[in-house]
């Protein structure tokens, strides 16, 4: 029984039966039953404006009207076919606008007694129904992993509100292409003026010039290098190569190539330095 493409699955007898079973479960009562469904519309003072108790498949008699000051309250019990209390994995009260089709899902929370309750507070009313009054279809959307799901249409309610506010809200809600975004580069950080920077650079160079001047005055010279010219020159050259390598690293050479070059220079520098300095010690000892 090879399926002939995706459609081929559904054309098969077994697939048809399975689909019908799933459809029956999803749209009919299934194993969950909503009982003692209480729909109330209360006044702020606590007076009940509308109240009706339903049990499936009953619907509301009439169209109760709700507003921010007279909110909606729905409570219900859920049992299985065996009349045992069921624990739901999802319990929503769905309000679908008949005019626009917009759907709002409000969570029904389980109380300590085991029943489920949804209270539409004033704050939630403003949040959810700010986009407009009108007639809404109320339904319970209940589901349980163990017992399946049930969709119970309770009836219609009328939501009161300001038409002008709703129209304004509609005008604000535009669904079109967003305005073109333009990349903004980060603003360059403010830096001091070049004159100040150059002045401080000169101030940092002046001690170096003064240092050389004082050294010359003290009589610093390179006459001792002549005693071991080759070794001293090579040692100074290799040390200078290390300084040049540091500059090259600063300019752009990556770390690992720099370390490789430094490692390559290390042994010659050590050997030449050892040779030059030991010969200098010998000269000093011979001189004394």
């Amino acid at each position, binding site marked *: 029984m090879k399926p002939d493409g995706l459609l081929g699955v559904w054309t098969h007898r077994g697939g048809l039966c399975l689909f019908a079973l799933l459809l029956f479960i999803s749209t009919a009562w299934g194993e969950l039953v909503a009982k003692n469904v209480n729909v109330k519309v209360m006044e702020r003072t606590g007076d009940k404006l509308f109240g009706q108790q339903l049990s499936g498949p009953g619907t509301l008699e009439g169209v109760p009207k709700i507003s921010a000051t007279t909110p909606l309250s729905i409570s219900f019990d859920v049992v299985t076919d065996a009349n045992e209390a069921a624990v739901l994995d999802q319990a929503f009260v769905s309000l679908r606008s008949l005019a626009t089709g917009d759907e709002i899902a409000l969570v029904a929370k389980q109380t300590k007694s085991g029943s489920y309750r949804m209270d539409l507070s004033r704050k939630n009313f403003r949040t959810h129904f700010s986009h407009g009054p009108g007639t809404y279809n109320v339904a319970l959307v209940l589901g349980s992993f163990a017992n399946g799901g049930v969709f119970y249409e309770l009836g219609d309610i009328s939501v009161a509100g300001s038409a002008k506010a709703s129209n304004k809200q509609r005008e604000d809600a535009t669904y079109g292409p967003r305005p073109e975004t333009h990349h903004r580069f980060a603003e360059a950080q403010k*830096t001091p003026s070049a004159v100040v920077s150059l002045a*401080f650079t000169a101030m*940092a160079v002046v001690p170096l010039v003064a240092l050389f001047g004082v050294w010359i005055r003290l009589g610093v010279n390179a006459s001792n290098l002549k005693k071991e010219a080759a070794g001293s020159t090579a040692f100074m050259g290799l040390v200078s190569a290390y300084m040049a390598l540091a500059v090259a690293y600063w300019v752009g050479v990556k770390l690992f190539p720099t370390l490789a070059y430094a490692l390559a220079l290390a042994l010659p520098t050590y050997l030449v330095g050892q040779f030059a300095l030991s010969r200098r010690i010998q000269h000093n000892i011979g001189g004394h």
Partner: protein
Amino acid sequence: MSASTTDVVCKLARGYTEKTPRRLKVIDTYMVFCVLVGIVQFAYCALVSTFPYNAFLAGFGSAVACFVFAANLRIKTNPKNTSQFSGSSEGAFAEFVLCHIILHFIVANFLG
């Protein structure tokens, strides 16, 4: 009071000039140079701007480290300390050079 202070300073300067070996004076002038360079960098950071901060840290740290290495070289090459240190002046200079090589790589890395 001021006259005695002046006398003390003059005596100190004269004693330093006459009794300090030339090699140590060379190192001392290098240390003064490091201090001055550090002061200039710090003054720039305090008065003008800390940008770029990593460059200031690298430069100032370099000046301080050079001062410390020079101080160590001075201690080791001072003839009065020969009883405490067994190595030669050339060995101390080799250590000084090695420390500077490592320092300059660290500074180049931090300079940015």
